[in-house]
């Protein structure tokens, strides 16, 4: 994350909180990523002196230096000229936040060039590079994923998806530009730029049972893929997401499926499925039938409700949401292809295009023994939602099948 952005956000939030009075800071713990490693730097005040420790043991290294700069509020070197947007003739707008300006420039470039010409367009490529550059090194995982999705949408000429993704860029550009004027905290902005921010941005949980039902690797900017795991919290029914990109700490251990007994975890507020970080946990591949039965009971039985949640998540987190659902069809129908149908008679087709082999396998399973639930990503096509299936199951361990 960009330090200047962090300080700006801190300043903005601090101005909205009551005067702390004569509170004293005894210790600050900062997570710093540099040279491809993430370390924790602790800044302690002992007997009036500042004592610095780092998990890599190197007090002269970049991690300790970055933490000290943050505390000292040392200005950083100039990053380069502000982006100046030339608009209608004779009008020159005032300089904007670099990241906001980069997003604005990107939206304008894509719209000017048009989606059908955007792939391979030097203007659009340059605009994307500016966004990534303005976000700082390394780019946040959310941004890395967003850029990858935008490129894929442009490549596939998926105009509605391009519009939704760019809507997210417009929203964050406005939020960044108006950060000092906004009256309400911007959850969407936090979800874009931060892995963990400020007060109330994370929820700490403990003593939970989570069942991982699916995992995947998705494209993201930079080397390697974004690894994702989808876990169901048996207490709340919420689907959570564990995620890691190449520069981040590795994910928790264990196969899929697995039972995770959570002693301590954090869940970030953000687009669904919300991102979770496991700190203390136990894991086993032996998942009891009772847990599978609980999970089946949590599955959403109304496709209309799932669709509503889908739309809501895109409205709240435009450009970021990738909704993952656990649904329980009432029945399966074969209409020149397999379609799941809920109790109200609504149909949710399967995305054959994205997972042809998985759908074929699902068809075989339905013929042998109808699964009770299916988990997967909802995706929007021209005429409605489809489900990309990732896993299916019923009431027992033997019925679970990982499709991807």
């Amino acid at each position: 994350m960009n330090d200047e952005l962090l300080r700006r956000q801190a300043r903005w939030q601090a101005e909205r909180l009551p005067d702390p009075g004569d509170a004293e800071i005894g210790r600050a713990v900062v997570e710093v990523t540099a040279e491809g490693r993430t370390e924790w730097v602790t800044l302690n005040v002992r007997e009036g002196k500042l004592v610095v420790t780092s998990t890599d043991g190197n007090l002269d290294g970049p991690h300790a230096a970055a933490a000290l700069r943050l505390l000292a509020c040392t200005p950083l070197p100039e990053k380069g000229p502000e982006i100046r947007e030339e608009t209608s003739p004779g009008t020159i707008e005032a300089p904007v936040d670099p990241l906001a300006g980069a997003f604005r420039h990107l939206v304008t470039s894509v719209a000017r060039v048009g989606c059908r010409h955007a792939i391979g367009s030097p203007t659009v490529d340059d605009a994307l590079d500016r966004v990534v550059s303005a976000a700082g090194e390394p780019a946040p995982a959310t941004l890395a994923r967003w850029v990858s999705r935008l490129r894929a949408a442009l490549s596939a000429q998926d105009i509605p998806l391009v519009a939704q993704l760019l809507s997210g860029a417009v929203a964050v550009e406005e939020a960044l530009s108006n950060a000092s004027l906004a009256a309400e905290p911007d959850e969407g902005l936090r979800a874009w730029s931060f892995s963990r921010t400020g007060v109330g941005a994370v929820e700490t949980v403990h003593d939970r049972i989570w069942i991982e039902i699916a995992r995947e690797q998705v494209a993201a900017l930079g080397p390697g893929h974004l690894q994702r795991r989808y876990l169901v919290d048996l207490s709340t029914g919420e689907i959570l997401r564990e995620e890691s990109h190449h520069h981040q700490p590795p994910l928790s251990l264990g196969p899929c499926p697995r039972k995770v007994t959570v002693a301590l975890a954090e869940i970030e507020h953000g687009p669904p499925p919300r991102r979770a970080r496991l700190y203390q946990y136990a894991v086993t591949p032996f998942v009891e039938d009772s847990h599978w039965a609980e999970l089946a009971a949590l599955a959403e039985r109304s496709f209309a409700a799932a669709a509503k949640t889908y739309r809501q998540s895109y409205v709240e987190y435009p450009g970021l949401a990738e909704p993952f659902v656990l649904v329980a069809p009432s029945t399966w129908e074969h209409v020149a292809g397999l379609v799941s149908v809920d109790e109200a008679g609504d149909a949710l087709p399967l995305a054959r295009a994205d997972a042809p082999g998985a759908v074929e396998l699902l068809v075989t399973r339905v013929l042998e023994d109808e699964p009770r639930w299916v988990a997967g990503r909802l995706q929007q096509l021209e005429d409605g939602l489809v489900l990309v299936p990732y896993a299916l199951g019923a009431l027992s361990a033997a019925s679970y099948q990982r499709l991807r």
Partner: protein
Amino acid sequence: MSDVRLPLLRAWLDEGIGVDVEAIRNELGTRADASDAEVAATVVTSLGRASLLKASVRPDRRLDDRHSLPPAPVGAADSSFLGRLGVAGEQGMRVDRLDDLRTLIAVVRGGTLVQRRAAVVRIGALLAHGRQDPEVTKEAMVMLHQLRDVELLYERAKARETLPGAQGRRARTEAEQWRATLKKVEASVASFWDGESRVEPILALPGDQRAMLLARVRDLPDPIVAHLSAVIEGCDGATDEAGRMALLSSLRYAGDRRLVPSLSMLLATAPADLAIEAARVLGRIDDPRVRPALLAAFDRSLVDSRRAVLVGALALQGDYRGCGYVRELLETADAHVRLAALEALEAVGSSEDSESVAAGLEEQDTVLLARTVRTLARVGDRRVLPGLLALRERTSVSALWAEAEDAIAAIRARLELRGEEPQTGDTLVFKVPAAPVERKTVTTLARLQARRDLWVGSLWLLLGFFGRAMARFDAAALRRPGWTPPLVAAGMAYIGREEFARALTAFRQAIAADRSRLERNAIVIKAIAHAFLRRAEEMERDGRKDIARGLVGEVLALDLRRAPGALRFELVRRQEALRREAA
């Protein structure tokens, strides 16, 4: 937002607003001096909101009609009986509908992997019904007993378990032993994830036990397969990349579709060596998800040796694209690439490739030569029989004899299935080498004394007097030089005490005395292979990998057809791993 405007918004974003931004401003109702950025923002947010309204479900039964299915498989151009013979779920002639045991035996020898698997299953089913001609039944049972094709280990084990008589009993005993090993492994896996042990339990097993366990992956319970997936994905927290590679290569013949998601993930994102090994495992799994994953990897792959492996894996899935490409690779000077091409041709090749592959019978490199013979077993026709015979005459390596015999049997089986009659010249008689001539100084008395020493030594061993037993075995060997039983007895005794180095000494002497006799004895050859493998593992642990490589190479030069297939597979796997490390 009206439906009328939605197409306009789409068109603007699709074609670009730069063409006539003035008109767009008017249509949107924005200010006349609104910047391009403002117009762009309005277009995308309006379109985003409008299209989101369509994110819904409806009662009508629609389908995903996007064209995205993977390209149709490229079929093999073989119109013969074998080329048209399908398996369960396909139209037309099918293996599971054949009732003639002789035809099925020929398919086991000469068919593709899918056909061979189906044929073994069908033979097992027919024998279990017991309504076959006794002579042919006996022939089928002997074939099952002697079948050493490592690709068919699982199907063979299942078929044998249903047989009556000694063979069936032996198979059921082996199954019980497997279940006992599994029970221990389950407990170890549970302890591992409970944090009681930091050592991954399956890789910690001795190589032969691991091979036996993983020969029946399809019978493993789901949590154990999930554990295997975690290890190969690198999510167990205890296994390094070398360990992942070792386990992955041990799973080559697993054929378990529960592994497909993990293997597909490795194929797409793991380092090249792991990805290619994952391709080999995937190619042998009957699952609709496999071919799309292999195709995607094939399209991405640029390195010849890796691309060749993918061609082979696709061919195992019934997609023969890349055949011409692999044929060209056979001409390359790079031995590594030629090896990969030969591997691929086993699956993707046809009788057209007989002669070009048979040119490799002049190779000096025994690894390339063995691979050439194995490929000829799958694609060769009558034209290569003389070459195989010549190889058999000139080589002194037992393993190559065995490969040549298997290749000839497979080619003859294919000739039979094509309705061709083998000509006289095709008949090969393999003379069993005569036992070494014993020294003329061995008198009858000495022979009797040697036999007595052997019996007494065995008795001492039974009573637990190891030193005395060894002394007796030594005495028997000295009295009757060239007589292998006391040397074998000593070797077996050392194995019992896990003194594999000493066991090797005894077995080497026995091999030098009468190799072919030992190779024909299933119990002895199994013990020899076991001792060499365990000693090689010890050397590897001590960091003496060259010696380990030599030991594995030495035992693989023997005719191991009568050793358990899983043990042979583990030796081959270890040889490949050691060679990779040395490279």
